[in-house]
């Protein structure tokens, strides 16, 4: 087996007395789609926020290994370096686009750091240097390529807030992809999508995987998405990992079934004995 892209080791996150994530360890493998599932309040988004730098974990280590075998410890990086240096991008459960900016501008803001360097921290840019104009053109081309890929090129000059919900979801993924991530974290990308849009999303995500540059980690409640596209599923319940493996294995795991569906009262003892509680 190849070395994992992201190694989460003994991750614990406490908010005062509340233990949101407790001693969680799992791996995200290169070139795979890993799904993080679990009932509401299981701590999935907390794990995401730790990985993407919005929370500093109480304990544990998040080791990210790039293809050039450079390793970053995500829990130690300042939050803007997680995207810029460690190349981890994310989307949000409640869409966070720049609503008053156009679709195209959204994708250009995502390329802020390389463009900032190219503009010589705005000094070369103010003087209108050739090299900056060239990189700006390249950034525009990249944005346009992504808009063509997600079928939004006709709406490039519309404000992002005017797009229908499903388009906003895809635009947010494209915006995250414009930062050239090695790991893309998607927080419930299929929430609120109709079956057709959900299918389009599956195609987009598998095509990103097929490009080979980006591995995906996603939180999802929609099992049709999870089972159709993920290579590896991690199940959380009350901040603890209860199952980890291929979708087929996880689907038949009694602990997962118990966590999602609950069990009859008279079976509790039997199930508990079986799962070793």
């Amino acid at each position, binding site marked *: 087996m190849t070395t994992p892209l992201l190694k989460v080791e003994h991750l614990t996150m406490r908010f005062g007395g509340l233990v949101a994530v407790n001693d969680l360890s799992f791996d995200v493998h290169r070139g795979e789609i890993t799904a993080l599932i679990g009932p509401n309040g299981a701590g999935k988004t907390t794990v995401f926020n730790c990985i993407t730098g919005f929370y500093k974990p109480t304990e544990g280590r998040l080791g990210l290994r790039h293809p050039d075998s450079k390793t970053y410890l995500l829990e130690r990086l300042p*939050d803007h370096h997680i995207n810029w240096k460690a190349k981890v991008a994310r989307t949000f459960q409640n869409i966070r686009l720049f609503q*008053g900016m156009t679709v*195209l*501008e959204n994708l250009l*803001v995502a390329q*802020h750091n390389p463009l900032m360097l190219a503009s010589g921290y*705005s000094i070369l840019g103010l003087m209108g240097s050739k090299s900056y104009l060239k990189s700006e053109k390249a950034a525009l081309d990249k944005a346009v390529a992504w808009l063509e890929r997600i079928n939004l090129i006709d709406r490039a000059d519309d404000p992002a*807030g005017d797009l229908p919900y499903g388009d906003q979801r895809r635009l947010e993924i494209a915006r995250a992809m414009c930062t050239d991530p090695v790991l893309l974290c998607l927080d419930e990308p299929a929430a609120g999508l109709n079956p057709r849009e959900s299918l389009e999303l599956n195609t987009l995500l598998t095509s990103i995987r097929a490009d080979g540059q980006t591995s995906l980690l996603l939180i999802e409640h929609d099992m049709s998405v999870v089972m159709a596209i993920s290579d590896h599923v991690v199940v959380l319940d009350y901040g603890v990992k209860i199952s980890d493996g291929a979708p087929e294995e996880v689907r038949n795991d009694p602990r997962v079934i118990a966590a999602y569906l609950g069990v009859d009262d008279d079976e509790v003892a039997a199930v508990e004995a079986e799962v070793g509680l």
Partner: protein
Amino acid sequence: MTQANTPSSTEAFDLVQAVKDAGFAGMVTFGLCVPIVAFRAEQDMANKLVLQQRWWMALVITGLVIVARFLFSLHQHSRRNDHAQQAPAGTSSALALIKPYLAPLGFGFITIYPLMMLAIHGPSGSIKWIDNFGIQILIYVMLGWGLNIVVGLAGLLDLGYVAFYAVGAYSYALIATKVIPETFPFLGVWAFWICLPISGLLAALWGILLGFPVLRLRGDYLAIVTLAFGEIIRLVLINWVDFSNGYAGLSSIPRPSFFGIPFNASDTGFAAVFNLEFSPIYRTIFLYYVILVLSLMTAYVTLKLRRLPVGRAWEALREDEIACRSLGINTTITKLTAFSIGAMFGGFAGCFFAARQGFISPESFVFLESAQILAIVVLGGMGSLFGVVVASIALVGGIEILRELDFLKEVFGPTFDPSQYRMLVFGVAMVLMMLWKPRGLISTRDPSVVYKERKAISGSMVQEGHG
């Protein structure tokens, strides 16, 4: 809303309802006027209180309210119909028609304005028009454009902008009256031109010094701290007498020279060198063009920066700070750049202000100044350069105009002083704006980059920022 319920695009004007509304408003007004306006206690010669009855005044006010309420109903009705018919068309057609000619016309006008005034009012009469209107308005335009970077683009509410204006003014005043005469006397005539960049840089430095601890705060907290900073600077200037000469202020600040040629009556002065009769008007005209160039520079830099990554990051920060962080944008540095660049333009304006006045004191840098600059930015429409110009003309020029309305004395009697009502007018204008255009005069956002077609973005979509 009513327009959603009515399928037809125009609805009949409900006269009965409008009259009822007007009558009700009149009744309320009359009720309020009885105790407040209709009776007035006054002292007579013998120091006795006399009750005066002023029923005619109460009736006049009530009548005015009834008419105003009725007109308001009419206006709302016509607006509703306009809205139903024109909503897809977007901006009104009249504005769209003159829009392409607006910029060159306006630019031409402000360029020849001082010469026009000189031609109309003569050398001594035109000083008032160039100085009180031209220069004064342009200073506020420049301050508005500077603050617009902080408030309009980056969405950081700064209530202490006048602090940077003060830093710029005192930098120039202190360097030009103390440092230069003592250490580099030969630079005397160039003082303004040397100090202009220094004042800007010092103000930017203060922007960074203030910004570092403060920019982790958001929204109201940031506003309060910047407000306090503005007051602290003023109080330091008042109390540190050795440094700034306290309340007495600094006087005999050198005036700007015409690139080394001073504006005085001497043989090497401007008038003598160019074979003109000596007159103070030349300096005023020169100052007008200096501030014009300075403000155009502010506008140029702002427009350029908006199209650069840093400008887009400012606007993205105003839209959604959390999303910015997830995209690897260093929010602290980005806010600091907005803060310090805004402060720098404030510093330039301050330096110019000190040079124009020749005298500065802490009185010129009170909170009301900050509030007025902020009002200009908000009234103009957050982020809009053109809006700031219109708002400055309306707020600064409008108040100056009040002083000129002598004919009102014919109507209200010789003791009537229109300029005393400026705050009232100011307040009424604000209330009307909130009702009529809550997002400012220019409430659309112009995209910084275009793929095929430039479309203005409606203000209701754009966030105001909260940090």
